[in-house]
C-alpha cells in the first residue's frame, strides 16, 4: 500500500488518506444507523407501555393510532395508586426484596470471606458447589418445594403456603449462590498482604472483614446487592406457585392475576402497573449503571 502510494506520486497520497477517512466516516454512519434501529427495537415495548398508560380506556378501545396519545390522562396512575391491591403488591414486593437483599448479603459476604481467605476442609469443593447451585433453575425446584411445604405444614403445623414472607425463605436460593460466587472473586482479588498487615496491626478476623474487606470490596458488594434486588423484584414462578390470596401477592403476579379478569384486559391499568413495577429496577439501573454492569459481567469473567 505504502509503496503504491509513493509510486503514484505526491498527488495520489492525499487522495488515499481522504478515502481512508471517508471509509471510516461511512462505517460510523452505518454504526449509528443500525444502533438507532436496534434502539427502536429494544425500547419499543417500554415506550409503548408508557404511551398506553397515559391513555383513557375509551381511547384504547377506539382503535385509533396506537402510537399517539390524543387525550393524555393520569387517570390510570391515580386509579392504580388509590386502589388498595396495587399498593399491597408494591409493599409486599418492597419488603420481600429488601429482606432478601439483607439476608443474601449477610450470608454471602460472610461465607465468601470464609471461602476466599480462611481455607478449611472442603472449602474449594464448596466454592465450586456454590457455583453449581447457581446453575440449578427454579423451574426444577418449585415442585419438590411445593411438596416439602405441605410436609412442613403436616409435621410442624407451620403453614408456609400463601404467605408473602415465605418468599423471603425461597428467594435466597436464587440470589445467595451467585452473590457468594462474585464476592469470592472480589475478595480473592484483594492482595494477601492486606489481611496480613491487618493481622499484624492487631485486627481480628471480624475486624479484618468489616474494616478492611468490606470497604475495599465495596463496588463488588454494591453490584451483588443490585443483583439480589433485581432478581427478587422480578421473580415470577415462586410467587405464582406459592401465593394465591390477593393480600399476599407480589407485583409481577399481582398485576397479572388481578388486573386481568377473565378475558377482560384493562390494558391502560396493566401497562401502568407494569411500568410502575419496572420502575424500581430501572431507577437503580439509571443511577448505578456501572455497578449493575459490573455485577452482570462478574459472573463469567471472575473466578
Amino acid at each position, binding site marked *: 500500500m505504502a509503496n503504491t502510494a509513493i509510486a503514484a506520486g505526491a498527488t495520489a497520497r492525499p487522495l488515499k488518506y481522504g478515502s481512508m477517512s471517508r471509509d471510516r466516516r461511512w462505517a460510523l454512519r452505518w454504526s449509528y444507523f443500525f444502533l438507532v434501529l436496534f434502539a427502536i427495537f429494544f425500547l419499543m415495548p417500554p415506550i409503548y407501555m408508557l404511551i398506553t398508560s397515559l391513555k383513557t380506556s375509551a381511547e384504547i378501545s377506539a382503535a385509533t393510532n396506537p402510537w399517539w396519545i390524543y387525550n393524555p390522562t393520569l387517570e390510570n396512575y391515580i386509579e392504580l395508586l388509590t386502589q388498595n391491591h396495587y399498593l399491597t403488591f408494591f409493599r409486599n414486593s418492597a419488603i420481600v426484596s429488601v429482606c432478601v437483599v439483607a439476608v443474601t448479603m449477610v450470608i454471602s459476604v460472610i461465607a465468601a470471606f470464609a471461602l476466599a481467605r480462611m481455607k478449611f476442609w472442603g472449602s474449594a469443593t464448596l466454592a465450586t458447589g456454590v457455583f453449581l447451585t447457581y446453575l440449578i433453575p427454579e423451574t426444577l425446584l418449585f415442585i419438590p418445594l411445593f411438596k416439602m411445604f405441605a410436609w412442613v405444614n403436616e409435621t410442624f403445623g407451620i403453614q408456609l403456603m400463601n404467605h408473602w414472607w415465605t418468599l423471603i425463605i425461597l428467594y435466597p436460593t436464587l440470589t445467595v449462590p451467585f452473590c457468594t460466587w462474585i464476592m469470592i472473586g472480589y475478595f480473592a482479588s484483594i492482595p494477601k498482604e*492486606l489481611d*496480613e*498487615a491487618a493481622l*499484624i496491626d*492487631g485486627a481480628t478476623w471480624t475486624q479484618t472483614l468489616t474494616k478492611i474487606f468490606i470497604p475495599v470490596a*465495596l463496588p463488588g458488594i454494591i453490584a451483588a446487592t443490585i443483583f439480589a434486588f433485581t432478581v427478587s423484584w422480578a421473580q415470577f414462578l415462586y410467587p405464582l406457585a406459592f401465593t394465591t390470596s390477593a393480600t399476599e401477592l407480589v407485583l409481577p403476579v399481582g398485576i397479572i392475576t388481578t388486573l386481568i379478569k377473565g378475558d377482560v384486559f384493562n390494558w391502560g391499568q396493566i401497562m401502568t402497573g407494569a411500568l410502575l413495577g419496572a420502575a424500581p429496577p430501572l431507577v437503580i439501573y439509571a443511577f448505578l449503571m456501572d455497578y449493575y454492569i459490573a455485577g452482570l459481567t462478574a459472573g463469567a469473567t471472575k473466578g
Partner: protein
Amino acid sequence: MAQVTLRKIVKKYDEVLAVRGIDLDIVDKEFLVLVGPSGCGKSTTLRMIAGLEEISGGDIEIGGHVVNDVPPKDRDIAMVFQNYALYPHMNVYENMSFGLKLKKTPKDEIDRRVKQAAGILDITELLDRKPKQLSGGQRQRVAMGRAIVRDPKVFLFDEPLSNLDAKLRVQMRTEIKKVHQKVRTTTVYVTHDQIEAMTLADRVVVMNAGLIEQVGTPNDLYHSPATKFVAGFIGSPAMNFIPCQLEQAAGALSVRLSDKLSFPVPSDRTARYASHAGKANLVLGLRPEHIAETRPHTEANQHDFDMMIDVDEPMGMETLIYFTIGGADVCGRVNPNAGAMSGKAMKLRADLSNMHLIDDSTGKVL
C-alpha cells in the same frame, strides 16, 4: 531489650522443607539483613518471625520470650511489605493509626505518634491523601511510617524496595538507613539484592536452600566468604572461579590454572593450603578487582601474565574485560586508559594476596 533468637527453626510445606533448621541470634538495635536467591527460605523465615507462618519445629524468642504460639499482633513487631499493603480506602493518617486505634490507644497519643513518625519520614503534608494519590516512594514511606508509629520491638522488612525503580531504590535505601539510625529499633530485612544487603546491614545472613551459609558483617562476607556460594553471591561483578591444581615443588606451593599459567601461592597461605596439594576439584576464587592491567611497580604476590581479551565493556571509571582460562570465563577490571580492546592481547596482573582456594566437592573455602 529486643533481641530475637531463632533456635533450630524448621518450616515444612506438606513434605517439602522450606527452612531446614536455622539458628540465629539477632542483637538488640541491630540491622540484620537476610539475603539469598529466591526460594532460599529468607521470606519464610521472616514470616515465621512475624507469626504469619506457623513454625514446623524449633523456637522463636523475641525479647527473651518464646513466641511460637503468640499471634502476630501480640509479638510487638511491625512489618513493611513488598507491595506496601496500604489500606486503599484509608488516608495516610488512618493507615498509620489503624493499629493503634485497634489497640484502643488514646486519641491524643495516636495523634502525637503519627505526627512524630510523619516528621521523621517527611510525609506530614501527605497525611490526608489516599494511597492511590501517592507515588511509589511516598507509599514506601507511609508503609514505614505505619511500622514506626507502633513503636515495636522489631521491624520486619520483606523486600520493601523491589517495586521501586532503580534510582528511587538507591534513594530509599539511604532513607531506610537514616531512619534506623534515628529510631534504633532491631530490624530484620529480607532482600534478594546483595548490594542492598551490603549497604544496609550491620550483619548479613546469606541463606541458600533453606540453610544459613554464613553470618557476618558486610566486609567479612566480602573478604572472607566461608563457602563458594557466598563468595559467588556477594560482590558484583561476581568473583571469578577458575578450576586449578595445587602443586607442590621444592617446598613451594603454586596454583596451576592451565598448562601455561601458574602462580605461586602467597607465603602466608602456604601452611594453610599445604595439606590440599594434589587434590582434585579445587577452584581458585579471585575477585575481578584483583585482575588489573600491569603496572611498572610490582608488589608482593602480584604476577603478570598475557591474555587475549574476548570482550571489553567500558564503564567510564573502569573497563571490564572478559577472557577465558581453561574454559572458565574470567572478568577483570582495568584502567580505562590501559588500552583494553576486544580481540587483542593484553598484559595483565593478578594479585593473589586476596585469593581464595575452594574445594568444589564440599563448596567450602579452604
